[in-house]
């Protein structure tokens, strides 16, 4: 018995070491750091209790970042997931050039985000960018997509959706392919309409995939900020500052370790809460075969 448990621990060890070294230990030190001031030069960090959190509550940029991130999540998650499902259904049917369309849908996923951001930077360029160019055929004028507070964040959302939808489509496509064809035949015999079949059979069978995709989409809504770094650096006037970008800025531009640690703890808590909601509430309603 003891030998077996030793063996089990040894088998777990590699994964455990990596997890502790790169996930749990940094998380724990971050939480500790969030209660101290930023060390500067020869001044060591000083314990300040929850002062950093109090400061954060009165930091207007934090609230802007939080609001922006909420808007970003509320748009990117459903739009990319629904789009992924629609694309998967489209390429799951027999049609000419199916492989080509599938590949086209999946291409954005394969491109590195930095490259994607640079491509879209060109699309959004005022006057001679792609969008302004197309709009000019219909008499549209100059649009400063990334320089205008009203369009900057939607522009970021569009890039994220474009990048993500193809990735999620692959999961839906795999799930659709795994669906036994006799269900469809059976439904046809029963005289069920296509919409009814989709609503009563396809959707429930796709629920495990949907949960997986949703979890990923939620994480990405807080994780995907590379394009913000390349395209707007959080501007104009913080219109595209997302939480993770603000953490980066606090940590590596302002060298404010205390603020960065505090922000990270808040983000960690937020993600924890969302994960609990998804697995605890939504997970119970998912039907696994």
């Amino acid at each position, binding site marked *: 018995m003891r030998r077996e448990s030793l063996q089990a621990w040894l088998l777990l060890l590699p994964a455990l070491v990596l997890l502790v070294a790169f996930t749990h230990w940094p998380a724990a030190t971050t939480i500790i750091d969030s209660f101290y001031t930023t060390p500067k*030069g020869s*001044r060591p960090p000083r314990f300040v209790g929850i002062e950093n959190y109090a400061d954060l509550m009165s930091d207007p940029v934090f609230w802007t970042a939080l609001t922006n991130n909420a808007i970003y999540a509320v748009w990117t998650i459903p739009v990319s997931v629904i789009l992924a499902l629609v694309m998967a259904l489209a390429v799951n049917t027999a049609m000419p050039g199916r492989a080509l369309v599938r590949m086209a849908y999946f291409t954005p996923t394969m491109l590195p985000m930095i490259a994607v951001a640079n491509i879209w930077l060109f699309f959004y360029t005022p006057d001679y960018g792609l969008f302004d160019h197309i709009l000019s055929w219909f008499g549209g004028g100059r649009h*400063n997509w990334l*320089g205008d507070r009203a369009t900057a964040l939607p522009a970021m959302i569009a890039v994220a959706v474009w990048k993500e939808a193809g990735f999620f489509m692959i999961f839906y496509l795999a799930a659709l392919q795994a669906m036994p064809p006799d269900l469809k035949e059976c439904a046809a015999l029963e005289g069920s309409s296509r919409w009814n079949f989709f609503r009563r059979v396809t959707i429930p069978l796709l629920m495990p995939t949907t949960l997986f995709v949703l979890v990923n989409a939620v994480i990405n809504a807080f994780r995907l900020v590379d394009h913000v770094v390349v395209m707007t650096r959080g501007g*104009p006037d913080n219109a595209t500052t997302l939480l993770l970008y603000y953490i980066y*800025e606090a940590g590596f531009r302002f060298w*404010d370790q205390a603020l960065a640690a505090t922000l990270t703890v808040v983000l960690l808590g937020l993600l924890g809460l969302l994960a609990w909601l998804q697995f605890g509430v939504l997970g119970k309603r998912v039907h696994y075969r």
Partner: protein
Amino acid sequence: MRNIATTHRTLPRRTLIGATAATLAAPSILGAQGKTTVEFYFPVAVGGPITKIIDGYCTEFMAANTDIEVKPIYAGSYVDTLTKAITATKAGQGPQMALVLAVDAYTLIDDELILPFDTLATSDADKAWLKSFYPAFMANGTIDGHVWGIPFQRSTIVAYWNKEIFKEIGLDPEKGPASWAENAEWTAKATKREGDKVSRWGIQIPGDGFTYWLYQAMAAQAGVELAGDNGRRTDFNSAGAVEGLQFWLDLMNKHRSHPTGISAWGTGPRDFLEGTTAVIWHTTGNLTNIKNNAKFPFGVAMLPAGKRRGSPAGGGNFHLFKGATPAQQQASLRFLRWLTSPEKAAAWGMATGYVATRPDAWETPTMKDYVAGFPQAAVARDQLAFAVPELSTHDNQRVAKALTDELQAALLGRKPPKQALDDAQAAATRLLKPYQKA
């Protein structure tokens, strides 16, 4: 917490002794140990002409100084370079030198990462060297009576104008706008409207990326210095500061010669080269690019005068990091003295459009020939007489961002200029509080 400046004042003595000893012993030590390697970070985002030029200088220097090996490490944008230099130094693997924005000196000093040059460069020749640069370029790197930065990749803002357009609208094509009034009137005239659509703008001043830098020129022209008291105080909301911002907003809303909102730093030169904008304010670092690509005659002017002329000095200085051994410190100094010699400063200026950093560089025969054939190159030099140091304070990145955010809010019409600048001043005051003398 208070006055961080005092802590590093005590420090240089030990390094000084070490360095002097090293200077005396240098030839024998170097002979015995072989090469001294010096690494430096340099801000280049992608390979290209700049990388080639710097690599060329290093090879040339090493050929003449066989006991030293210099290794440039190209580290991305200015901000990236600073980030990498700080992180690497804190991890104990930093470079011996790095070229970062002159305004980030406070950040490096407050984190106790760099050494002042004047404590190492102590010979008479060294002292003369430190005095050989334009004072406008030394200002940002001179803090608490010490010299922390050696100017190299320095620039300033100038106005580029399209002579063809000026001729077309009946202006003297050989004269750029010299005053705020001329600037407003002439650029309004150069703006071409067809109904609601604008096919040509009179002027563009970039509002992203370096917003505060461009704005600082206007504030200087309105007679205001944005920072003072050794980087502990800012003056963002005085009447003059508001007047400076109003000048920018008036171009958009009153004279309607500037696109509303935020004009992009990156596309400004292209709009100018395409002829869709008559005048742009941009860095002298773009001079060579515009010279090589403009299909029309263009002029370079000093920025127009409000109460006075004014343009902030900008760009990067070399900083010496603490991790360097005495031998590396001396090797770094030798490299910098060579790199900033009049001939090299002139060559660098001609190759890139950055402003040659010392008066005697402009007296070299090659530079004289160059200016004779391309007088636009000398405008930035002449403007140095009116230059102000770039906005630089403790916690500089943050103070600059606070100002940039509020300026953008004003440019986007979300806040009236006075309120935006009041808010920027309040934010800066809060950020600078820890640095006030107790």
